[in-house]
């Protein structure tokens, strides 16, 4: 099957020449990506996650590029925010997918099943919630952790700023 | 009275030669940094900068790692400096003959040139850090690859002398100084000796461990190489050793290829007393050493990037080795056919 036939049943949207995005349900996204890889999209540019707080979903986005067809295809899925589990694409795309999923697990808390190693990359000694979530109040967290009430220099942060 | 003077001379002369080596080596280092900076479009440090560097290094704390072999770690810089100054005692300094002279000067010098590298290498292994082990292994590769062209070049010239003057000692530097090589060869031999001169200049760049062959002390790759664990006083002694070796290599090339004096030229026009002619020859020697150091250290450092380890071996065993063999064949043909 060519790539147009694979994504035609999901109503693709064409923004510009060479920029197409398509919404796929969560259960079918792994098979769609596997078929797209075989149809010519051999380069995974990035995996990203968007946090829609009002609707209560995480939207996982896979950006695929093809050298032969020269099109950037964006495959989007929605997963529930309370139980963010999705199947990992490491068996399809290898180590580049592993690094992206590791960062997303650390920053958003999304669990990718099948990923060999989900240890944190940037945050050492981290004891708070995943920081990129929109309901994480980073100012309160920073005020608690870094500025103490007893020290003269830090009193301004408690009284005036960081409110 | 004569014996007292002779005893004083024997005791004091090595110190004077050593002091000359150290001071002139540091002056050459300062001039090298200034000229490098000017060639790169900047203003360089003042000419006394190496002296400030060494004085600062002597004030720093000396840190010795816990799992190092302490006696070897502390002795290595001293052995290196002592060997470098000892090599100077076998070389003719300007118009003055070498202090120690014998049958096989050049063979002793050939071995003494390797001892500082071996000492620093042993110190690198004794430091017990993985970076210094890698640096010492690279230095071993460098030394192995430089042995062949160096030995072949020296043997070629000594063989030439032994075939022309069978009565004189072939490996002694006084033979080289009294009979300059360029007067005793024909056209083919001229080309051969020219090739040997270029090979010897390349060998002194690598013997000193300068760009493009500074793979052992590579800064950005293995953060200091063999000198990783050296601080304070030990690093100061290694800095001085680096400066003395420039004078050693330059004096060796000067004695083998350009042992000319300036005073006979001037004595054609003006009658010179002994002290004046010795001074003029000495200053001319200092100028020649500066020129050789400029070509081997400064020009090479500014123009070339660093070689890879296997490319260094290919260069010395491939190109330089073949060039030395070709020069040897040219010299042999020159002797037998007399062209």
């Amino acid at each position, binding site marked *: 099957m060519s790539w147009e036939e694979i994504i035609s049943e999901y109503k693709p949207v064409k923004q510009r020449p060479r920029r197409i995005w398509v919404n796929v349900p969560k259960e079918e996204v792994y098979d769609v990506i596997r078929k797209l890889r075989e149809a010519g999209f051999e380069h995974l540019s990035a995996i990203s996650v968007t946090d829609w707080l009002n609707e209560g979903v995480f939207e996982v986005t896979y950006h695929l590029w093809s050298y032969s067809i020269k099109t950037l295809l964006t495959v989007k899925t929605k997963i529930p925010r309370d139980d963010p589990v999705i199947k990992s694409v490491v068996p399809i795309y290898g180590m580049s997918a592993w690094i992206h999923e590791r960062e997303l697990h650390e920053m958003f808390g999304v669990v990718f099943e099948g990923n060999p190693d989900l240890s944190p990359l*940037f*945050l*050492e*000694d981290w004891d*708070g919630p995943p*920081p990129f979530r929109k309901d994480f109040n*980073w*100012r309160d*967290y*920073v005020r608690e*952790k*870094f*500025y103490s009430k007893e020290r003269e*220099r830090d009193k301004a942060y408690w009284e005036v700023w*960081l409110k | 009275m004569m014996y007292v003077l002779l005893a004083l001379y024997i005791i004091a002369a090595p110190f004077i030669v050593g002091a000359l080596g150290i001071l002139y080596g540091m002056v050459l280092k300062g001039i090298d*940094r200034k000229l490098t*900076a000017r060639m*790169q*479009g*900047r*203003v*360089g*440090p*003042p000419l006394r*900068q190496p002296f*400030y*560097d060494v*004085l*600062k290094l002597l*004030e*720093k*704390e*000396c*840190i010795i790692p816990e799992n190092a072999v302490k006696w070897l770690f502390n002795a290595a810089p001293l052995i290196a400096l002592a060997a470098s100054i000892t090599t100077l005692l076998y070389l003719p300094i300007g118009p003055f003959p070498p202090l120690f002279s014998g049958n096989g000067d050049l063979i002793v010098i050939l071995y003494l040139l390797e001892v500082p590298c071996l000492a620093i290498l042993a110190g690198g292994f004794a430091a017990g850090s993985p970076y210094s082990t890698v640096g010492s292994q690279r230095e071993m590769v460098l030394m192995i690859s430089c042995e062949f062209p160096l030995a072949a070049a020296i043997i070629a010239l000594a063989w030439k002398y032994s075939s022309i003057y069978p009565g004189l000692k072939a490996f002694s530097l006084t033979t080289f100084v009294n009979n300059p090589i360029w007067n005793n060869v024909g056209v083919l031999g001229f080309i051969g000796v020219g090739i040997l001169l270029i090979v010897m200049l390349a060998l002194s760049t690598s013997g000193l461990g300068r760009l493009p062959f500074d793979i052992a002390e590579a*800064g*950005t790759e293995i*953060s*200091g190489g063999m*000198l*990783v*664990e*050296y*601080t*304070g006083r030990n*690093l100061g002694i290694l800095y001085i050793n680096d400066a003395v070796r420039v004078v050693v290599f330059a004096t060796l090339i000067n004695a083998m290829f350009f042992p000319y004096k300036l005073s006979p030229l001037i004595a054609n026009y003006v009658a010179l007393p002994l002290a004046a002619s010795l001074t003029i020859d000495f200053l001319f020697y200092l100028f020649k050493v500066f020129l050789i150091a400029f070509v081997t250290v400064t020009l090479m450092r500014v123009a070339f990037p660093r070689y890879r380890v296997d490319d260094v071996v290919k260069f010395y065993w491939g190109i330089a080795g073949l060039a030395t063999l070709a020069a040897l064949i040219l010299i042999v043909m020159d002797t037998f056919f007399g062209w």
Partner: protein
Amino acid sequence: MVETEKKVMARKLGRLVRAVWIFNWFNSCGCTELLPVVSSRYDMERFGLIIVDNPKHADCLIITGYQTIKSIKRVVRIYNQMPDPKVVMALGSCPITGGMYWDSYNTIKRLSDYIPVHMYVPGCPPRPEAVFQAVGLLVEHVRKLKEEVSRK
């Protein structure tokens, strides 16, 4: 300080300030205007400062900009490896109060809580002339210290 200690310190600092060797820890955005200082436009080698690649050879540690929790642990290790006497210079406004990242969850706010700092250079990033002024202030301070010691 006892008198002889002060004399020894003055002598050591006097020799140090003529040939400061800087360790190559340029890891944040505060170092963007330090690179012309190192290279040929605002040449810093004319004052004797060179860059070394090994904390054991260095006298000066320049912290350029913000440090995260992960990198401040490594900075403390590097500071402990440098031999005495040593100088720490903090570039930019991030080591002073937290700078642009004062409300970030992963950067440290005040560098002096972790290692002793001897000179702060404000700016975001500081201009090359500011770095030279900082070095000049250090030289002035050492000169005054030596005068004071030699007067007694």
